[in-house]
């Protein structure tokens, strides 16, 4: 007699989310951090036409009401026209306020003094210009900038330091990209936005996955294992290509600095955030 065998697969932490639970939790986060803690009931965000900012717009509209959400589109002359039209779909679907502020003049004004700027530098200038516009529009409208960076790009260092990461609150920064997709679908973000290849849209025909060298679906699973403490050989044993594991690991390990405030020389026993410790909401 041969008994049937039940064989357990190697354990792997799940990336699944209950999207409605996630939505309610993140809406409560926005209300508490904005209204309760800061007394600010208006949100402002850069709406790129991509899925991250679209999801944040949906969450803000649910948490604060669409009349309290301001979407700023900030195209550069090389930005894809479809980015603007996709952003418009979201504005129309939600009934939020929207304004388009071209950054071409400001960016090109500076770049005229930097003729040697390569695409990466130009992309960083655009990202930092958008940050500048967003914060000025925030002051103009009394609305709090809301961040749109997801956990995957934060871990991979795939963002411009002190630009995309500057808004004081971010509801999706602990969600991997694949979780962003799941939540966006649940909340009804238009398919055109959910299904298109993610792109920073800083250069023509740019896509995130070609920049990163790995798909989000794979990167998220590898990142999740890394964050749970698995070593590379244990990740490879779970079926992932060693080259992709090394690539993801290298990106995480080389960008820890981007997830911190600037390094300050410690010279006293009262150094801020080293000895003098107070929580952000105190």
């Amino acid at each position, binding site marked *: 007699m041969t008994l049937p065998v039940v064989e357990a697969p190697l354990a792997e932490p799940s990336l699944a989310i209950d999207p409605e639970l996630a939505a309610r939790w993140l809406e409560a*986060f926005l209300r508490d951090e904005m209204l309760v803690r800061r007394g600010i009931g208006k949100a402002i965000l850069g709406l790129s036409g991509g899925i991250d900012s679209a999801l944040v717009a949906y969450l803000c509209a649910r948490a604060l009401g669409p009349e309290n959400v301001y979407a700023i589109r900030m195209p550069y002359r090389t930005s894809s026209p479809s980015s603007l039209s996709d952003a418009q779909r979201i504005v129309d679907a939600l009934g939020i306020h929207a304004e388009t502020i071209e950054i071409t003049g400001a960016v090109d004004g500076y770049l005229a003094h930097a003729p040697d700027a390569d695409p990466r530098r130009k992309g960083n200038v655009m990202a930092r210009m958008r940050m500048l516009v967003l914060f000025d529009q925030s002051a103009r409208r009394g609305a709090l900038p809301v961040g749109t960076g997801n956990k995957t790009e934060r871990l991979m260092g795939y963002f411009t330091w002190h630009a995309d990461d500057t808004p004081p609150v971010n509801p999706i920064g602990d969600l991997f990209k694949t979780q962003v997709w799941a939540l966006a679908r649940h909340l009804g973000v238009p398919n055109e936005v959910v299904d298109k290849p993610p792109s920073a849209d800083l250069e023509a025909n740019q896509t995130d996955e070609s920049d990163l060298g790995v798909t989000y679906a794979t990167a998220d699973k590898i990142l999740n294992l890394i964050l749970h403490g698995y070593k590379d050989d244990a990740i490879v044993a779970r079926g992932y290509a060693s080259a992709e594991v090394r690539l993801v690991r290298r990106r995480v390990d080389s960008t820890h600095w981007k997830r911190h405030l600037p390094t300050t020389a410690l010279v006293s026993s009262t150094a801020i955030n080293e000895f003098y410790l107070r*929580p952000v909401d105190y």
Partner: protein
Amino acid sequence: MNAALVQFKPRKGDVPGNLALMREVFEQLAPGAPDLIVFPEAALTGYFLEGAVYELAVDAPTMAQRVDAQWRASGAARPCDVVVGFYENVDGTFHNSAIYVRCGLESGVHVVHVHRKMFLPTYGVFDEERFLTRGRQLSVFETAFGTAAILICEDAWHAIMPTVAALKGARLIVVPSASPGRGLSGDGELESNARWKSLLSSAAAEHGVYVLYAGLTGFEGGKGMSGGTCAYSPRGDLIASAGPLDACIVKVQLDPAEVDLARATIPLLGDLSAVLPDLWLDDEIPVTRRLEERA
């Protein structure tokens, strides 16, 4: 015994404002006042204080006076027992504590018990032992319901804690807590809250004790306190529960006879009392061996 478990949402560091919120809760509960009101861990300050613990911690008599003053101001017609989690300053040593006080007595407030959290989580998002000293004692105390014990948050994650409390005579375990919610994969419930419910239910059912859990709620710098205020019968059944978000009050009735019935039906606590000494006679138990070596 009627108990009210308060899922409390303080403003960070605003002690006067949070005392006013406490008074509003008391005013709501004063008509037909319960016998026991339970507030969560660090209820009047918020949980994550870092170095501000040293600014806001007070001694137990001060905390007792503050709570009693709110009860008296609420217009309540009779005394009431109140449990509140707070940061305690004991002559310059700081604890994460919970006080059990009898408020509204003619003779003034009476401190029945102070429990100092023994398991201070210092990993991941938690950093308690950087700022606090752990308690060294798990004591039970007498209430109108019977013998009771307090376990604060991680105290209750160690199965041995409710076990020891029950072996010492506790028939009621009160758990003030502040638990940052995490894990979104659950079916409508945070993974951390599901873990809590499993732990509390097991503790109640194994030892035949009532378990009353009061959770802080509201976000503290991105970390959402996950509420989940609830009560378990001595059979381990969920009597009542609140969701993770929003302040609320959970009211429950406790019947001492339920403890007796649960223990009579499944006498696990009695079995443990009988067998416990034998557990320590096994030479292979490292703890025993170490004790012998030390002797």
